């Protein structure tokens, strides 16, 4: 009796987590996989027996021969997410470097200013960008006077607007891990590099970058993957002309309902995400301990 108590206790303590994982993760995934291998029936609902028709249609082998439309959406999502991530790194790295190396008195207010915008709902922020990039606003006028767009069109909707929206939306997710990384930089290593005849550029490449690389990798996981499947920003700022995979999936479950196709797309999105994480993990193996904890 006494020996069984710890086991019971452990089961009791673990059960909320197990139940949650079962209903919120395992069960939906089983449904998703099942739907992805079903046939499309009336009203777009899944029908049995199982088949690979949804996967084939996703790849473009439908009734009307091969068309790469769906794959283009997938590729566009990857390119859009990749470009946005690069831009986010480019903006966040110097910002985080400044904040992270600031004295602790200034760090908290600066972090507050950086994350305050993300307390507004992302839909609201996307709509704000719609207004900022609309025709006859200062930014649109500037773009048309520089000859990038014709007058009266405005910068939205466009792939550029999606890009801006993604960068703006995901900036905090890169800045925060980078501030942590910069805050933990061992300054003695910077001094050691200077003491050992390194100039500013080599102080950065040998003493600063190796200590902050893991922050960039964590930020990339937090930015690139959600950006890849992002729904609201491309929906509101892309205007349906440059559909991304998140919009595509949503469309299969709503408007032109086709649940098996949506499930197949969601499944391939998951697979691609896992491949992405695996690549980042490999990059991280030789890097700092904190990242290994995360992955």
């Amino acid at each position: 009796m006494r020996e069984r108590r710890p086991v019971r206790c452990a089961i009791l303590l673990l059960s909320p987590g197990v139940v949650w994982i079962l209903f919120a993760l395992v069960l939906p995934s089983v449904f998703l996989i099942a739907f992805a291998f079903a046939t499309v029936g009336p009203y777009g609902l899944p029908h049995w027996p199982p088949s690979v028709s949804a996967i084939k249609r996703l790849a473009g082998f439908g009734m009307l021969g091969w068309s790469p439309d769906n794959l283009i959406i997938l590729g566009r999502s990857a390119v859009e997410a990749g470009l946005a991530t690069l831009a986010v790194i480019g903006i966040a790295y110097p910002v985080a470097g400044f904040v992270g190396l600031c004295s602790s008195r200034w760090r908290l207010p600066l972090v507050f200013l950086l994350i305050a915008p993300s307390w507004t709902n992302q839909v609201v922020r996307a709509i704000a960008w719609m207004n900022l990039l609309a025709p006859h606003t200062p930014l649109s006028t500037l773009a048309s006077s520089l000859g990038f767009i014709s007058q009266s069109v405005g910068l939205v909707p466009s792939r550029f607007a999606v890009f801006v929206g993604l960068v703006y939306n995901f900036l905090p997710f890169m800045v925060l891990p980078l501030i942590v990384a910069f805050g933990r930089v061992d300054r003695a290593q910077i001094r050691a590099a200077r003491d050992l005849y390194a100039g500013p550029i080599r102080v950065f490449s040998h003493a600063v970058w190796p200590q902050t690389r893991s922050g960039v990798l964590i930020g990339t996981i937090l930015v690139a993957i959600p950006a890849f499947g992002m729904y609201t920003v491309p929906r509101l700022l892309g205007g349906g002309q440059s559909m991304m995979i998140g919009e595509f999936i949503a469309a299969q479950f709503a408007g032109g309902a086709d649940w098996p196709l949506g499930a197949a797309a969601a499944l391939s999105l998951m697979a691609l995400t896992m491949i992405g994480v695996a690549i980042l993990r490999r990059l991280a193996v030789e890097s700092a301990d904190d990242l290994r904890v995360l992955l």
Partner: protein
Amino acid sequence: MASNVGLRAVDKTFADGTRALDGVDLDVPGGQLFTVLGPSGCGKSTALAIIAGLDQPTSGHVEIDGRDVTNLPAHRRQVNTVFQSYALFEHMNVADNIGFGLRMRGVKKPEIRRAVEDMAGFLRIRALLRSRIGQLSGGERQRVALARALVNAPRVLLLDEPLSALDAELRTALADELADVQRALGITLVFVTHDQAEAMKLGDRMAVMQTGRIVQTDTPRGIYEKPATAWLARFMGLGNLWPIRGYGADGRVYLDFTTLFGLEAEGDYVLVRPEMIALTTAPPRGPNDVTADIVQAVFAGPSIDYRLHCNGQRMRVLAPNDGRMIHAPGTCVTARIPVERAALINA
């Protein structure tokens, strides 16, 4: 090869207003092991960073071999530093860490390899050259940091509390080794520490710092036997610092608990080091014998550490453990105060 280093009226005030150095004058003779002792926050590390060129003095000059190098950047001074936390580059292996300075100076690869291997052989870490920094013990890291600095053949080697992260046994072993290295290479070595025993044991000469100022520069013996201030006497842990209340005829000095005879000079305090006082059960004979009660007797191996009370004054006596009787607490004994070896200290 070895250079002498000088600080001339160096002030350093940080951006937040902290005054780290306040008119510091320092002369480190070439080819010596010079220790800088002080409590944490006294500015000793800042002084080191200013010699290295990693920090700029607010005013004053840094001289190396009599030449003003105040405005010479760190990478153009033949000075290298071993940092307190070692500051090794975690993403490089041991060999790349040691060779870093040579690589930055554009030395050719085969030459770097030879120099690194020679230095690793000299410090007996050859077997570690391919290891990653994360795999090393504290003592090994210490050696790698030393090798990384020494391989550049500096004229002056600065060490910022290099042993403070190590356990006692390793500390002693590495301190001895460091002294050997200094003698073998004949370079100037400035060693910063907050450990009194370490500073005295290692230093040919030493300086003691307090709140941004140098209190005294002398040989360890000079500082031990004649500390310049009462603070220094207390900081060195010398014990038995008794305030002088007045002077009488024939060299009488009045203290709170007794009168001493035969002290020649003047000062604010009498310093009598605990190992100089002799204890006996015989009754007082001489004029400077006082009776005292043993409060505590701590057995410390080679010596017995006694705490006594003498007319309300506390007294500490360190008696050699000569294998004879140890006075038990409560015993009344006679303490012989050797005035001829007492020092008079100014506040």
